[in-house]
Protein backbone atom coordinates (compact mmCIF):
# COMPACT_ATOMS: atom_id res chain seq x y z
CA UNK A 1 0.00 0.00 0.00
CA UNK A 2 2.84 2.38 0.97
CA UNK A 3 4.29 1.68 -2.45
CA UNK A 4 1.40 3.57 -4.02
CA UNK A 5 0.75 6.21 -1.37
CA UNK A 6 4.34 7.46 -1.19
CA UNK A 7 4.69 8.42 -4.87
CA UNK A 8 1.22 9.97 -4.72
CA UNK A 9 2.21 12.09 -1.72
CA UNK A 10 5.43 13.14 -3.41
CA UNK A 11 3.47 14.08 -6.50
CA UNK A 12 1.01 16.16 -4.48
CA UNK A 13 3.82 18.03 -2.71
CA UNK A 14 5.57 18.70 -6.03
CA UNK A 15 2.32 19.80 -7.68
CA UNK A 16 1.54 22.24 -4.86
CA UNK A 17 5.01 23.81 -5.07
CA UNK A 18 4.85 24.09 -8.86
CA UNK A 19 1.33 25.56 -8.73
CA UNK A 20 2.50 28.18 -6.24
CA UNK A 21 5.51 28.87 -8.45
CA UNK A 22 3.26 29.50 -11.46
CA UNK A 23 1.44 32.25 -9.59
CA UNK A 24 4.56 34.03 -8.37
CA UNK A 25 5.78 37.14 -10.13
CA UNK A 26 9.56 36.96 -9.82
CA UNK A 27 9.96 40.31 -11.56
CA UNK A 28 8.06 42.01 -8.73
CA UNK A 29 10.53 42.37 -5.92
CA UNK A 30 8.97 43.38 -2.60
CA UNK A 31 10.37 46.75 -1.55
CA UNK A 32 12.07 46.97 1.84
CA UNK A 33 11.05 50.65 1.87
CA UNK A 34 7.39 49.97 2.70
CA UNK A 35 6.53 51.60 6.06
CA UNK A 36 9.87 53.44 6.05
CA UNK A 37 10.36 57.19 5.70
CA UNK A 38 10.59 58.33 2.08
CA UNK A 39 14.28 58.70 1.07
CA UNK A 40 15.36 62.31 1.21
CA UNK A 41 16.19 64.22 -1.95
CA UNK A 42 16.37 67.80 -3.10
CA UNK A 43 15.97 67.84 -6.85
CA UNK A 44 15.41 70.51 -9.51
CA UNK A 45 11.93 70.79 -10.97
CA UNK A 46 11.60 69.82 -14.63
CA UNK A 47 9.61 72.91 -15.62
CA UNK A 48 11.69 75.36 -13.55
CA UNK A 49 15.14 73.90 -12.79
CA UNK A 50 16.14 76.78 -10.52
CA UNK A 51 13.49 75.64 -8.00
CA UNK A 52 13.96 72.51 -5.95
CA UNK A 53 11.56 70.09 -4.31
CA UNK A 54 12.18 67.81 -1.36
CA UNK A 55 9.83 65.37 0.46
CA UNK A 56 9.81 67.76 3.48
CA UNK A 57 7.83 70.25 1.34
CA UNK A 58 5.00 67.72 1.14
CA UNK A 59 4.65 67.03 4.86
CA UNK A 60 1.03 66.76 5.91
CA UNK A 61 -0.09 65.71 2.45
CA UNK A 62 -0.70 62.35 0.82
CA UNK A 63 1.19 62.10 -2.44
CA UNK A 64 1.95 59.70 -5.24
CA UNK A 65 5.52 59.44 -6.47
CA UNK A 66 5.47 58.21 -10.03
CA UNK A 67 8.75 57.27 -11.75
CA UNK A 68 8.57 57.94 -15.49
CA UNK A 69 10.69 58.68 -18.54
CA UNK A 70 10.04 59.67 -22.12
CA UNK A 71 12.06 56.63 -23.30
CA UNK A 72 9.88 54.22 -21.33
CA UNK A 73 7.30 52.42 -23.46
CA UNK A 74 5.04 51.21 -20.67
CA UNK A 75 4.90 54.76 -19.28
CA UNK A 76 3.01 55.70 -22.44
CA UNK A 77 0.50 52.98 -21.60
CA UNK A 78 0.11 54.29 -18.07
CA UNK A 79 -0.05 57.96 -18.96
CA UNK A 80 -3.79 58.33 -19.82
CA UNK A 81 -4.67 56.61 -16.54
CA UNK A 82 -2.55 59.09 -14.57
CA UNK A 83 -4.16 61.95 -16.52
CA UNK A 84 -7.58 60.70 -15.44
CA UNK A 85 -6.48 60.27 -11.84
CA UNK A 86 -5.10 63.83 -11.85
CA UNK A 87 -8.50 65.16 -12.99
CA UNK A 88 -10.14 63.68 -9.89
CA UNK A 89 -7.78 65.74 -7.73
CA UNK A 90 -7.81 63.04 -5.05
CA UNK A 91 -4.08 63.19 -4.44
CA UNK A 92 -0.93 65.16 -5.25
CA UNK A 93 1.06 63.46 -8.00
CA UNK A 94 4.80 64.06 -8.07
CA UNK A 95 6.74 62.74 -11.05
CA UNK A 96 10.33 61.54 -10.96
CA UNK A 97 11.67 62.06 -14.45
CA UNK A 98 14.20 59.22 -14.35
CA UNK A 99 17.36 59.30 -16.49
CA UNK A 100 15.77 61.43 -19.15
CA UNK A 101 16.60 64.41 -21.32
CA UNK A 102 14.70 67.49 -20.05
CA UNK A 103 13.79 68.54 -23.60
CA UNK A 104 12.40 65.11 -24.46
CA UNK A 105 10.56 64.98 -21.14
CA UNK A 106 8.95 68.40 -21.60
CA UNK A 107 7.97 67.46 -25.14
CA UNK A 108 6.31 64.28 -23.86
CA UNK A 109 4.25 66.22 -21.30
CA UNK A 110 3.26 68.86 -23.86
CA UNK A 111 2.12 66.17 -26.27
CA UNK A 112 0.40 63.70 -23.93
CA UNK A 113 -0.78 65.97 -21.12
CA UNK A 114 0.75 66.63 -17.71
CA UNK A 115 -0.82 64.74 -14.77
CA UNK A 116 1.94 65.84 -12.39
CA UNK A 117 1.67 68.65 -9.89
CA UNK A 118 5.46 68.77 -10.08
CA UNK A 119 8.02 66.63 -11.90
CA UNK A 120 11.56 66.56 -10.64
CA UNK A 121 14.66 65.54 -12.56
CA UNK A 122 16.93 62.61 -11.77
CA UNK A 123 19.27 62.59 -14.74
CA UNK A 124 21.98 60.36 -13.28
CA UNK A 125 19.58 57.96 -11.54
CA UNK A 126 20.75 58.59 -7.96
CA UNK A 127 17.32 59.35 -6.52
CA UNK A 128 16.16 56.22 -8.32
CA UNK A 129 18.77 54.13 -6.48
CA UNK A 130 17.73 55.62 -3.12
CA UNK A 131 14.12 54.69 -3.82
CA UNK A 132 15.06 51.19 -5.00
CA UNK A 133 13.81 51.85 -8.52
CA UNK A 134 14.59 49.03 -10.95
CA UNK A 135 11.78 48.98 -13.48
CA UNK A 136 10.16 52.14 -14.79
CA UNK A 137 7.29 52.96 -14.34
CA UNK A 138 6.96 52.60 -10.59
CA UNK A 139 4.50 54.32 -8.29
CA UNK A 140 4.88 54.93 -4.57
CA UNK A 141 2.16 56.13 -2.19
CA UNK A 142 3.48 58.36 0.61
CA UNK A 143 1.37 59.30 3.65
CA UNK A 144 1.05 62.57 5.58
CA UNK A 145 4.05 61.74 7.76
CA UNK A 146 6.28 61.13 4.76
CA UNK A 147 6.20 57.35 5.14
CA UNK A 148 6.02 55.09 2.08
CA UNK A 149 2.91 52.97 2.39
CA UNK A 150 2.68 51.20 -0.95
CA UNK A 151 4.75 50.51 -4.03
CA UNK A 152 3.45 49.52 -7.43
CA UNK A 153 5.94 48.16 -9.97
CA UNK A 154 5.08 48.45 -13.65
CA UNK A 155 2.30 50.45 -15.29
CA UNK A 156 -0.76 51.36 -13.23
CA UNK A 157 -3.76 49.86 -15.02
CA UNK A 158 -7.31 51.24 -15.25
CA UNK A 159 -8.44 48.58 -12.75
CA UNK A 160 -5.66 49.38 -10.25
CA UNK A 161 -6.96 52.92 -9.69
CA UNK A 162 -10.40 52.05 -8.17
CA UNK A 163 -9.19 48.75 -6.69
CA UNK A 164 -5.94 49.78 -5.03
CA UNK A 165 -5.08 53.45 -5.27
CA UNK A 166 -8.34 55.30 -4.51
CA UNK A 167 -9.22 53.22 -1.40
CA UNK A 168 -5.66 53.53 -0.09
CA UNK A 169 -5.55 57.28 -0.74
CA UNK A 170 -8.93 57.75 0.99
CA UNK A 171 -7.68 55.76 3.97
CA UNK A 172 -4.45 57.77 4.21
CA UNK A 173 -6.28 61.11 3.79
CA UNK A 174 -8.45 60.15 6.77
CA UNK A 175 -5.41 59.46 8.95
CA UNK A 176 -3.99 62.21 11.09
Amino acid sequence: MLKFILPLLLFIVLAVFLALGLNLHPSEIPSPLIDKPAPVFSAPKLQSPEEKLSPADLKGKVWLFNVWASWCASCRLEHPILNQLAKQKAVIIIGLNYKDEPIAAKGWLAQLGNPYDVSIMDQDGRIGIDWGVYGVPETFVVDKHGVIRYKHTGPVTAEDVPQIFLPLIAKLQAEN
Partner: protein
Amino acid sequence: MKYLFIAFLLLLSNMACAGVEYRQFANPEQQEAYEDLTSELRCLVCQNQTIADSNAELAADLRRQVYEMLQQGKSKQDIATFMTDRYGDFVLYKPPFKLKTGLLWLGPVAFLVIGLIALFLFARRKKNAEAVTISAEKQQKIRRLLEKGDQS
Protein backbone atom coordinates in the same frame (compact mmCIF):
# COMPACT_ATOMS: atom_id res chain seq x y z
CA MET B 1 41.63 38.44 -45.93
CA LYS B 2 43.80 37.64 -42.92
CA TYR B 3 43.83 41.26 -41.81
CA LEU B 4 40.09 41.47 -42.24
CA PHE B 5 39.72 38.44 -39.98
CA ILE B 6 42.00 39.95 -37.33
CA ALA B 7 40.07 43.22 -37.52
CA PHE B 8 36.86 41.23 -37.01
CA LEU B 9 38.30 39.47 -33.95
CA LEU B 10 39.42 42.79 -32.51
CA LEU B 11 35.91 44.09 -33.00
CA LEU B 12 34.56 41.06 -31.12
CA SER B 13 36.92 41.57 -28.20
CA ASN B 14 35.66 45.12 -28.00
CA MET B 15 32.09 43.91 -27.71
CA ALA B 16 32.97 41.46 -24.96
CA CYS B 17 33.82 44.25 -22.54
CA ALA B 18 31.09 46.65 -23.58
CA GLY B 19 29.60 46.75 -20.08
CA VAL B 20 32.85 47.36 -18.25
CA GLU B 21 34.10 50.80 -17.35
CA TYR B 22 37.70 51.70 -16.81
CA ARG B 23 38.23 52.23 -13.10
CA GLN B 24 41.25 53.31 -11.13
CA PHE B 25 41.81 52.06 -7.61
CA ALA B 26 44.00 53.36 -4.81
CA ASN B 27 45.16 49.86 -3.86
CA PRO B 28 44.70 46.20 -4.85
CA GLU B 29 42.44 45.52 -1.83
CA GLN B 30 40.00 48.12 -3.07
CA GLN B 31 40.00 46.61 -6.53
CA GLU B 32 39.39 43.17 -5.04
CA ALA B 33 36.50 44.52 -2.96
CA TYR B 34 35.02 46.12 -6.10
CA GLU B 35 35.28 42.87 -8.07
CA ASP B 36 33.82 40.84 -5.18
CA LEU B 37 30.90 43.19 -4.67
CA THR B 38 29.95 43.61 -8.31
CA SER B 39 29.93 39.84 -8.76
CA GLU B 40 27.80 39.29 -5.64
CA LEU B 41 25.12 41.87 -6.38
CA ARG B 42 22.22 40.97 -8.62
CA CYS B 43 21.13 43.17 -11.47
CA LEU B 44 17.43 43.74 -10.76
CA VAL B 45 16.52 44.32 -14.36
CA CYS B 46 17.92 41.09 -15.78
CA GLN B 47 17.73 39.19 -12.49
CA ASN B 48 19.93 36.24 -13.48
CA GLN B 49 23.03 38.33 -14.03
CA THR B 50 25.32 40.04 -11.58
CA ILE B 51 25.86 43.77 -11.94
CA ALA B 52 29.38 42.95 -13.15
CA ASP B 53 27.95 40.89 -16.03
CA SER B 54 25.01 43.03 -16.96
CA ASN B 55 24.81 45.72 -19.60
CA ALA B 56 21.61 47.19 -18.20
CA GLU B 57 21.74 50.88 -17.33
CA LEU B 58 20.78 50.19 -13.74
CA ALA B 59 23.72 47.77 -13.43
CA ALA B 60 26.07 50.50 -14.65
CA ASP B 61 24.58 52.92 -12.10
CA LEU B 62 25.01 50.39 -9.30
CA ARG B 63 28.63 49.70 -10.35
CA ARG B 64 29.25 53.44 -10.17
CA GLN B 65 27.61 53.51 -6.73
CA VAL B 66 29.83 50.66 -5.47
CA TYR B 67 32.93 52.34 -6.87
CA GLU B 68 32.11 55.71 -5.32
CA MET B 69 31.36 54.20 -1.93
CA LEU B 70 34.67 52.31 -1.97
CA GLN B 71 36.44 55.59 -2.84
CA GLN B 72 34.78 57.12 0.21
CA GLY B 73 36.34 54.36 2.30
CA LYS B 74 33.13 52.43 2.96
CA SER B 75 33.50 48.75 3.86
CA LYS B 76 32.05 45.87 1.86
CA GLN B 77 29.49 45.33 4.60
CA ASP B 78 28.44 49.01 4.45
CA ILE B 79 27.85 48.73 0.72
CA ALA B 80 25.92 45.45 1.00
CA THR B 81 23.70 47.06 3.66
CA PHE B 82 23.20 50.12 1.46
CA MET B 83 21.95 47.87 -1.33
CA THR B 84 19.68 45.65 0.79
CA ASP B 85 18.14 48.74 2.45
CA ARG B 86 16.98 49.82 -0.99
CA TYR B 87 16.42 46.65 -2.96
CA GLY B 88 15.95 43.95 -0.29
CA ASP B 89 17.81 40.69 0.21
CA PHE B 90 17.05 39.75 -3.38
CA VAL B 91 19.88 41.98 -4.54
CA LEU B 92 22.40 39.65 -2.88
CA TYR B 93 23.36 36.46 -4.64
CA LYS B 94 24.28 35.12 -1.21
CA PRO B 95 21.17 35.84 0.88
CA PRO B 96 21.60 36.01 4.67
CA PHE B 97 20.37 33.10 6.77
CA LYS B 98 16.99 34.16 8.17
CA LEU B 99 13.62 32.61 8.94
CA LYS B 100 12.41 33.59 5.47
CA THR B 101 15.44 32.14 3.67
CA GLY B 102 15.68 29.04 5.90
CA LEU B 103 14.12 26.74 3.32
CA LEU B 104 16.54 28.02 0.71
CA TRP B 105 19.59 27.22 2.82
CA LEU B 106 18.39 24.05 4.55
CA GLY B 107 16.39 22.57 1.66
CA PRO B 108 19.36 20.91 -0.09
CA VAL B 109 20.61 19.43 3.22
CA ALA B 110 17.12 18.14 4.03
CA PHE B 111 16.85 16.49 0.61
CA LEU B 112 20.30 14.91 1.03
CA VAL B 113 19.26 13.47 4.40
CA ILE B 114 15.98 12.14 2.99
CA GLY B 115 17.92 10.57 0.12
CA LEU B 116 20.44 8.92 2.44
CA ILE B 117 17.67 7.51 4.66
CA ALA B 118 15.85 6.14 1.61
CA LEU B 119 19.07 4.58 0.32
CA PHE B 120 19.78 3.02 3.71
CA LEU B 121 16.27 1.55 4.02
CA PHE B 122 16.37 0.24 0.47
CA ALA B 123 19.76 -1.41 0.93
CA ARG B 124 18.71 -3.02 4.19
CA ARG B 125 15.55 -4.45 2.69
CA LYS B 126 17.57 -6.09 -0.11
CA LYS B 127 19.99 -7.61 2.38
CA ASN B 128 17.20 -9.09 4.43
CA ALA B 129 15.56 -10.74 1.47
CA GLU B 130 15.85 -14.51 1.96
CA ALA B 131 18.61 -16.27 0.10
CA VAL B 132 17.13 -18.57 -2.53
CA THR B 133 17.64 -22.24 -1.81
CA ILE B 134 17.93 -24.63 -4.73
CA SER B 135 17.19 -28.27 -4.36
CA ALA B 136 19.73 -30.92 -5.40
CA GLU B 137 17.49 -32.01 -8.24
CA LYS B 138 17.31 -28.49 -9.65
CA GLN B 139 21.08 -28.03 -9.34
CA GLN B 140 21.62 -31.15 -11.43
CA LYS B 141 19.25 -29.83 -14.07
CA ILE B 142 21.14 -26.54 -14.19
CA ARG B 143 24.46 -28.35 -14.62
CA ARG B 144 23.07 -30.50 -17.42
CA LEU B 145 21.78 -27.43 -19.24
CA LEU B 146 25.12 -25.66 -18.87
CA GLU B 147 27.08 -28.64 -20.17
CA LYS B 148 24.74 -28.98 -23.10
CA GLY B 149 25.38 -25.32 -23.86
CA ASP B 150 29.16 -25.86 -23.77
CA GLN B 151 29.00 -28.69 -26.29
CA SER B 152 27.15 -26.72 -28.93
